[in-house]
């Protein structure tokens, strides 16, 4: 590969990587606090994209869609946590299986509902005219929308990072993801925090849904692939670790980008191979806290 090609792949990998961060953040924080992998996460991503489609066709503004869809899905996420997950956890605090099944059922429900409302066919979300075409960055040419996707997701990711790492709220979140019981004993309102984290994660997934949905296309099953990648990223990074989610996502973005370029037929097994190698060397992931669960 030439230097230019390598730079292009690097940049594309970074674009995928920062968007993966948005999706992975919700997965890993919810896992850390509740011990649950949210199987409805891909549906929230998908619903975010469709919500964006509705806003941008009704109101004619992509930018408004990017603002409204995450807020709407954040509220949906909060409602799911309050209305369904919490009652289940109160009754069966030790079960990992029941919340997993609940979110699985919810995911199917949302996928089916999207088929009913928007049809099973692929639809596209138009990119704003300002972001059409390509831009030249030094030696390489890069699609303008890709650059926007990179910058927008990176800004959001940095904002979330600042909130989680640099604010009192973030301190509580980190404490509660590492040990919910101890955090509660020390006076953190873990119940309220769980709702906030679930809403935040859903909103971020929706934002990624709008950004990536515009880049590719929309279908009721569109969330499956990216959430699987995000899941692998957080397994690599260490389930429940926020730093791990970021590092894992960025790493996976590069593996995907170069994997597609170098081994087009086998890039997906390559991703799993990376995960297997990491898990064999470090069973709880790169930043995993050890054998708490």
């Amino acid at each position, binding site marked *: 590969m030439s230097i230019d090609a390598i730079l292009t792949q690097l940049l594309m990998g970074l674009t995928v990587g920062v968007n993966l961060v948005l999706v992975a953040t919700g997965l890993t924080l919810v*896992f850390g606090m509740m*011990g*649950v*992998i949210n*199987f409805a996460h891909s549906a929230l991503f998908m619903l975010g994209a469709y919500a964006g489609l509705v806003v941008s066709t009704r109101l004619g503004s992509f930018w408004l869609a990017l603002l409204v869809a995450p807020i709407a899905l954040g509220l949906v996420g909060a409602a799911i946590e309050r209305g*369904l997950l919490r*009652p*289940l956890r109160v*009754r*069966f605090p030790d*079960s*990992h*299986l*029941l919340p*997993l*099944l*609940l979110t*699985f*059922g*919810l*995911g*199917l*429900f*949302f*996928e*089916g*509902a999207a*088929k*009913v409302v928007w049809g099973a066919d692929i639809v596209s979300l138009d990119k704003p005219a300002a972001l059409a075409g390509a831009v030249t960055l030094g030696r390489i040419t890069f699609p303008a929308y890709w650059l926007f996707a990179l910058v927008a997701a990176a800004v959001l990711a940095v904002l979330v990072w600042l909130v989680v790492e640099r604010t009192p709220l973030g301190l509580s979140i980190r404490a509660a993801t590492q040990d919910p019981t101890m955090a509660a004993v020390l006076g953190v309102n873990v119940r309220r925090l769980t709702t906030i984290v679930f809403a935040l994660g859903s909103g971020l997934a929706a934002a990624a849904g709008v950004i990536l949905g515009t880049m590719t296309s929309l279908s009721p099953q569109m969330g499956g692939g990216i959430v*699987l990648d995000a*899941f*692998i990223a957080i*397994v690599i990074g260490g*389930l429940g670790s926020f730093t791990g989610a970021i590092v894992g996502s960025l790493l996976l973005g590069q593996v995907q980008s170069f994997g597609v370029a170098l081994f087009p*037929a*086998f890039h*997906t*097994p390559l991703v*799993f191979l990376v*995960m*297997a190698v990491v*898990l*064999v060397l470090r*069973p709880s992931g790169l930043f995993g806290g050890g054998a708490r*669960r």
Partner: protein
Amino acid sequence: MSRRLPIALAALALLAAPFGVGRLYSAYYLNLATWILIFALFAAALDLALGYGGLVSFGHAGFFGVGAYAAALSLRHLSTSLWPALLLGILAAAALAALVGRFAVHSRGVYLAMLTFAFAQLFYEIAIKWVAVTGGSDGLPGGSRPRIGAGALVLDLADKRHMYWVVLLVVAGGFLAARRIVNSPFGRGLVAIRESEARAAAIGIDVDRHKRLALVMSGGLSGLAGVLFAIHQNFVSPELLYFALSGEVVIIAVLGGIGTLYGALVGAVIAVGIKEILSTWTDNWLVFLGALYVVCVMCFPQGLVRLAERGARTT
């Protein structure tokens, strides 16, 4: 005696079911019964790991699908006989389970669920990408279905009634094997591990070995169910490896009640039946299925068999 009689009658009724086709009901219902039996075996196989070993697997479709593909490939390239397909399906699934077990056995709860999920998803991707062998996302159509037996007693699996009998016998054998495993000292050890790993280890049970073996047996039986599926449908596709199926079989097991084995049969009747009814009644069955799963988890999370047992005790 009082317990034997109903079981014997039920067995007789199940064996006689094909004779009612055309007289009491159409072949469609016999076909549906065959599907239910196959999924009951699959769910019972999962129950072995989940309900008895406490191994939360979210990737059992991997074992089922690998069994199905192994059978389809054996029938296609090796021999049109049923036996090598059956054997290869079980062996391939058990070998995969042994591999997964090596990696996953140290992890617990959700970690195990995620690792099994990832392995199954890996095979799903391989089935889609390795077009030359698996036919890619189009799947592999089967040829003529195998025939077994000789002379006057030949079962031709292209005949729906013969297929039903073979499935019934294999599934019954699978259930008996599972019950034998559960009631063996090994099975007791497995339950001890499920209840408390530390205590089980303290009284000298080899925890890792028990878990690995449980996963291998569960995987092998799932593979067997996959073989039956491949022959009955005469077609295999990557959906058999997809995580939606892993979730479905967990739902079937939980619906019936985990840790009961025969709960799998109850769960399969309800889940497969409802799915079938929904899909003939509306194109949007996915919405209702998802809502139904949510309602099941929220309203009777301990399964119908346990619910019935509790009801029987209170009245």
